[in-house]
């Protein structure tokens, strides 16, 4: 080795570059990933202009250009992917067109994009609005004016109908199920006649009357939804769309910047606040956000005491020796067990064994329909708590080890018992470390999907785990989860192309939620740190 090279090596410069380079590479990868998610996720909601392509053979194609790529096997030839929408008319949302075939591209002012409750977007020109059989407005401008006039009322009607269906009728169903279970419980006790059974019968009759009443109300409301909108698409195809299904109509080619921004903001708001439609490929993800956050919160409530108590025993009470060392190594390695194994354990132990026992003991009237003996948010949270408990134990143990011995001795010398010392001095001082562990645990739990798929997550949950019926918190219910939503929308949906932007948007949301939860925990930890700053020097 030549001397200057050896000198350089000993000077440490190359090593600094090596370490710095490794960090820069890692940061670059992470930044690239986040940028990809941001661009794809946030771009999805921007109202794109609609192009009308006239092809060489005279055919017309109207849609949004979403992608451009080189035609495979050629040089310099490109093709574009056009979102033509109108799945019910054309059969597919997307079409590829070779650029060479395009004779002309223009952006007609009268093309409307219609968002509707079924079949995805509708792109075309408004032709007329009908009320029943009568045409009330003809031509694009008149039809648009009429639609704009009628949309608020249509939305109001829709939400009223939905309110009756989920609210009033939901309550009736809930009552009915409760009565059915009560009757079955009586039957199991051998009571099939007498005043209690009659009382149930009477209540059921009353419920039935209430149901009839709501049904009439619904029928009345539905009668008022007679208006339809007629839209012409390519090749003169026509779609007669009930106005009740129309969520929004806009003309992207004539929209101003601020109007687009406003539209963008409302779409994002819809995404985070609304329920999903069209097997999750449209609409919002609110139930999944709710399920994710709630599961993480329940998991945190379960994992913190368990992990802290275990760590206290290991560090403060157990006699240190080979056995404790083995336990410690085992706990650390538990974090490396594949999460699906925890899921299988959750199914076998929590759901079948514990849940099954609970059902036999307390919900026997409902059997064979399981109550707790099937996947639910409680079991999923417990499984994840088990998965993340090593993280909390390790962090707490490290925190305990960092608390100076002198502080404990001082407390004991002041005539405190060991228990008092633990509760009044050690526990408050270790709380920041506990929260550090909890932050790591939450980040892991929020992103975990595999064990959830078998312990309670579903594609579409009929109701949230929290509602207005006693006991308000329904830990036995199945729930939706953003991580599973990503998998479902991205890989299980019938229309993957249309759903792909949703995958990015959902990923972005999941990231944002993890960051928010962490920020909350970090701010709590910093507050505690200020309060109980350790005297470790």
């Amino acid at each position, binding site marked *: 080795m030549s001397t200057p090279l050896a000198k350089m090596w000993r000077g440490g410069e190359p090593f600094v570059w090596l370490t710095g380079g490794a960090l820069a590479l890692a940061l670059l990868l992470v930044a690239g990933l986040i940028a990809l998610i941001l661009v794809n996720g946030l771009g999805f909601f921007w109202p794109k202009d609609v192009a009308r392509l006239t092809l060489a053979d005279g055919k017309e194609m109207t849609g949004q250009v979403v992608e451009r790529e080189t035609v495979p096997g050629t040089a310099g030839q490109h093709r574009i992917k056009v979102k033509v929408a109108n799945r019910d008319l054309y059969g597919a949302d997307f079409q590829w067109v070779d650029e060479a075939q395009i004779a002309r591209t223009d952006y007609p002012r009268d093309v409307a994009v219609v968002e509707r409750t079924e079949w995805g977007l509708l792109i075309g020109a408004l032709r007329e609005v009908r009320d029943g059989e009568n045409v009330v407005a003809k031509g694009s401008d008149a039809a648009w004016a009429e639609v704009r006039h009628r949309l608020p009322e249509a939305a109001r009607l829709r939400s009223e109908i939905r309110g009756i269906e989920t609210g009033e009728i939901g309550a009736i169903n809930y009552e009915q199920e409760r009565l059915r279970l009560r009757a079955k419980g009586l039957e199991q006790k051998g009571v099939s006649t007498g005043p209690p059974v009659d009382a149930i019968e009477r209540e059921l009759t009353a419920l039935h009357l209430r149901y009839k009443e709501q049904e009439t109300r619904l029928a009345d409301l539905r009668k008022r939804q007679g208006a339809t909108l007629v839209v012409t698409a390519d090749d003169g195809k026509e779609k007669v769309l009930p106005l009740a299904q129309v969520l929004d109509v806009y003309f992207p080619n004539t929209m101003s910047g601020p109007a687009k921004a406003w539209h963008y903001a409302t779409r994002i708001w819809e995404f985070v606040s609304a329920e999903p439609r069209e097997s999750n490929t449209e609409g919002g993800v609110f139930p999944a956000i709710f399920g994710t956050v709630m599961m993480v919160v329940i998991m945190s409530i379960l994992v913190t005491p368990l992990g802290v108590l275990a760590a206290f025993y290991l560090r403060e009470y157990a006699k240190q020796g080979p056995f404790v060392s083995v336990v410690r190594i085992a706990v650390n390695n538990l974090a490396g067990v594949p999460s699906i194994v925890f899921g299988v354990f959750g199914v076998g132990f929590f759901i079948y064994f514990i849940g099954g026992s609970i059902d036999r003991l307390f919900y026997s009237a409902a059997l064979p329909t399981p109550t707790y003996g099937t996947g639910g948010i409680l079991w999923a949270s417990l499984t994840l708590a088990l998965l993340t408990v090593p993280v909390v134990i390790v962090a707490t143990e490290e925190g305990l080890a960092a608390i100076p011995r002198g502080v404990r*001795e*001082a407390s004991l010398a*002041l*005539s*405190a018992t060991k228990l008092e010392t633990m509760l009044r001095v050690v526990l408050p*001082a270790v709380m920041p470390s506990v929260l550090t562990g909890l932050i790591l645990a939450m980040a892991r739990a929020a992103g975990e999907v595999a064990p959830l798929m078998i312990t309670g997550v579903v594609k579409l949950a009929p109701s949230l785990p929290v509602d207005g019926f006693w006991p308000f918190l329904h830990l036995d219910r199945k729930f939706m989860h953003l991580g599973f939503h990503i998998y479902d929308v991205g890989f299980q949906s019938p229309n993957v192309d249309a759903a792909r932007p949703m995958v990015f948007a959902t990923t972005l949301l999941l990231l944002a939620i993890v960051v928010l939860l962490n920020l909350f925990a970090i701010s709590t930890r910093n507050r505690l740190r*200020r309060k109980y700053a350790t*005297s470790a020097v």
Partner: protein
Amino acid sequence: MSGNVGIAANLNPRAEMASIMEPAMVEIDHLSLYYGEKLALKDVSMSVPKHRVTAYIGPSGCGKSTLLRCINRMNDLVDGVRIVGNVRIGGSDIYDRSVDVTELRKRVGMVFQKSNPFPKSIFENVAYGPRILGLKRRSDLEGVVERSLRGAALWDEVSDRLHESALGLSGGQQQRLCIARAIAVEPDVLLMDEPCSALDPIATARIEELMLELKNSYTIVIVTHNMQQAARVSDYTGFMLLGELVEFGVTRELFTNPRDKRTEDYITGRFG
């Protein structure tokens, strides 16, 4: 011969005998201590007079801290410790089976080598002991805290920031806070394990001053490896070496006219 040193001090017909015959607060009687198989204290006997400052000096590892920790049974926390002999406080044996250690520690407070305030506010540090003893009323606690902080000569410096973290105090202030915390429960005996070893000379001087005040109300036992400090603050001094109490007597006597050759070697710096 080491066995009778402490007693010899009591039986010594010379001038200091009268003062040694002062009422004893702590009596250590043929105390031996083993860490596992290792003998750490060899048959120590002595008595600590009431309302005086008694110092233990000696080289590192001689067992002076261990002896101090026998007086409030802090050695109980160490695995594998075995103790033979008696320690009596106010006439009752503290190693008796019936003794409640927390009751004992209520009577024997301790200040440690490294200041160890709790990671809490100044107020909560001082109020900790009284709270453990069941004092709950805010006004009572405030009274105790003020009295203790005044007793530790810290009140004027911290009275306007009682609810700030104790860890923001300087090293000397932290140590005085620990003294305040120890005297808040009004113990009979105050044990101090090298309380100034981590402090600068000014902070040390303040603590020494404080000790001279405190001895009017408390019996103080201090461990120090600083002979000047022992000479300055203590009324009685014991010299320990390799687990033995080599010599014990009135401080001035011990420093000016040691009876044992080893004591003389140590205090004149010819040791080892």
